[in-house]
């Protein structure tokens, strides 16, 4: 299984969503499964949540997967109350993610 990851900074919102979305789509375009490393991220805005789900749906349309890694408590909470958590398979660490998938 081909996997490539992208490392997110502290936030995912309307200021950087385009850059993140482009990077994730580029990974999928290559035919790789994409992993978003969110370990450093402590805030995801409404736009950010939509980038995640968009990437997930784009991956699915290509027969690929999209995984999330390293939620902070704040991000986990937002994902939970807005219902976005139910769409994703997630892992606590990159190591756990790679061990599970490989």
């Amino acid at each position: 299984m081909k996997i490539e990851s992208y490392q997110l900074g502290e936030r995912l919102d309307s200021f950087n969503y385009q850059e993140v979305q482009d990077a994730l789509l580029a990974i999928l375009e290559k035919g790789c499964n994409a992993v978003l490393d969110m370990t450093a991220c402590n805030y995801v805005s409404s736009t950010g949540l939509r980038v995640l789900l968009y990437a997930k749906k784009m991956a699915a349309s290509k027969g690929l997967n999209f995984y999330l890694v390293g939620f902070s408590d704040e991000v986990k909470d937002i994902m939970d109350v807005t219902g976005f958590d139910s769409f994703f398979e997630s892992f606590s660490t990159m190591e756990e993610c790679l061990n599970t998938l490989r």
Partner: protein
Amino acid sequence: MQRIDIFPTHEYQGLKLRSGRPYPFGATTIGNAVNFSVYSRYATDCTLVLFHNREEKPFIEIPFFKEFRLGNVFSMMVFDLDYENIEYGFRMDGPFNPEEGHRFDKSKILLDPYAKLIVGRDVWGQQPNWDSIYPYRARVVFSDFDWENDVPMETPINDLIIYEMHVRNFTCGAASGVKHKGTFAGISEKIPYLKELGVNCVELMPIHEFDEFENHRISPVDGRELFNLWGYSNVGFFAPKAAYASSGRFGMQVDELKTLVKRLHANGIEVILDVVFNHTAEGNENGPYISYRGIDNKTYYMLTPEGYYFNFSGCGNTLNCNNPNVRDMIVESLRYWVSDYHIDGFRFDLAAILGRDQNGNPMSNPPLLESLAHDPILGKTKLIAEAWDAGGLYQVGSFPSWGRWAEWNGKFRDSVRRFIKGDTQVLGDVKERIIGSPDLYASQGRGIKASVNFVTAHDGFTLMDLVSYNSKHNEANGEDNRDGENNNNSWNCGCEGPTDAPDINTLRHQQVKNAITLLMVSQGTPMVLSGDEMGNSQFGNNNAYCQDNEVAWLDWNDLQKNADIFRYFKQMIQFRRQHKVLRYEEHLSHTDYLGLGYPDFSWHGVKAWQPWAGHNNLTLAFMLNGRYANSDDQGAPEGPDDFIYVAMNMHWEMHGFEPPQLPQGMAWHIFANTGMPSPEDIFEPGTEPVIENQQLVLVGPRSIIILIGRVTS
């Protein structure tokens, strides 16, 4: 293929613009532009005011150019906005002439009447900046929620068991055990509890944006802060209350509420919203400018010939519901909640107002109510009227319905309360209520499905207080106990308020069980007040609209303290869901029209087939013939239903009742006896034991017995 009409034609202070689309009203995204559209019949000029998020001063004010107007609508598209970080409002210019009904003031920045996301008051009870030039702010909403397979559930209304609840009261209590207290997410956490209780519909008290600081004050009695807790006072008709979302501080209340609805649906629970279209939070002549008053006062409000506000709502103003444009707004709002939030039904607060014309007179065929009854998008949405208003119009049984509208049956509440407390003058009325109030709903093709039955609701005593207090105790509301209903038909069972006397407490529990029993075995949709299932008390306060504290919040410790009540409610609800014969849609015939040996429904007295045989007008029995009702998808077993016999003795002495003889091979089994201590008071449906004496049952003082007639195993 790209559209060719999405290129800017104008530029203003660096922002690219184009003439907008007049419809739909509000702010919508089109490609990389936001389309702003606002209606005002009497405004002469309009300006779009844009802020960066949470900034006090706008970064630009854009006039609507002449070519951006069509009819009485101002619309423009603004390109390349980072719309997650934009807040918008309008300035309206026009005459200020209250005698003519106009109150335009271009110094005010106004909220869009169609705002779908309102921020600025994101954390409950946090003092806002009272000097802000624009306190409630509209944002552009994402309307792309992923519902997957969810749709409104369309459960037949007669199969619902409605649970009337308040977002904060439900989980703010210290013992609620949820992480996100007082929010939509908090309700989500309690879904397993709702499922255990067995209700299949929650009715949320108002969740549209409102101002909890309206009439904010300190109680002169106990020094507590008083808020507008209930929220019957709208700021916006399209936006959820931000402070009801744990994610409101991030502006994510829309997603959080939609997620709650989706999760409730996934667990078989419908969602009804309590909507308040009779007035707004702008108050009377002295109230604030939030939106409507400054956008188009004469359109939105019912005004006296001198230009003052009519006050049929008791809240300072009255929305001009039968003005064609306001009517459109109401219809749009309801459609939006159904299509975008998958809401299953609405309960209309003080709905009689919706049938008044622009001068306040009641109409015989109010166009708004007719529009709603025939609306295509609302075609299967439950429409429930609180069929009275504060101006003296009382329409229970006569609310214009077109066969679509159900009503809060206030007469059910009054009759059942009186019967339970031992009133000897109410038997005939109680009989009507038990069979789905044919005296009120047999005409106009309405049927049993028009009746929403309840004994308690947010207005008035909780069920435990109904049996613990003779009089209201609203002193803490700071109005010298003048507020709240005086005529409660309550009885304290011998002592006002809490007591250690075991006989009084036993009787109170018994009376609570009598009430829920009558509610669950009566024809019509039952509504339970949240907290009654655990014996919640408001300490005698029958109008806790301002008590954002332990008075109104559920005390979840009561679940242990009153475990017998919770168990009884749970089994009674399950019983109703298992017996289709309790959930008819149309009125009963009282005859054996299919030749099954017994009528579909029959009255009895203490002697079988002799309804006149009784004591003091306080005894009554009836039997439902299960062969007239087949099972359905609400959990009832396959095949014809059982016979159900209910014997009620509201007399203070014990009486023997003779149940009717069953067909050969069947026997009476006992399901419930409110006169017995727990756990003998009620059995798990399906496990009811056969009774020894099939000819006579003894029903204790102030007790109800339910028997099931089925083949003995």
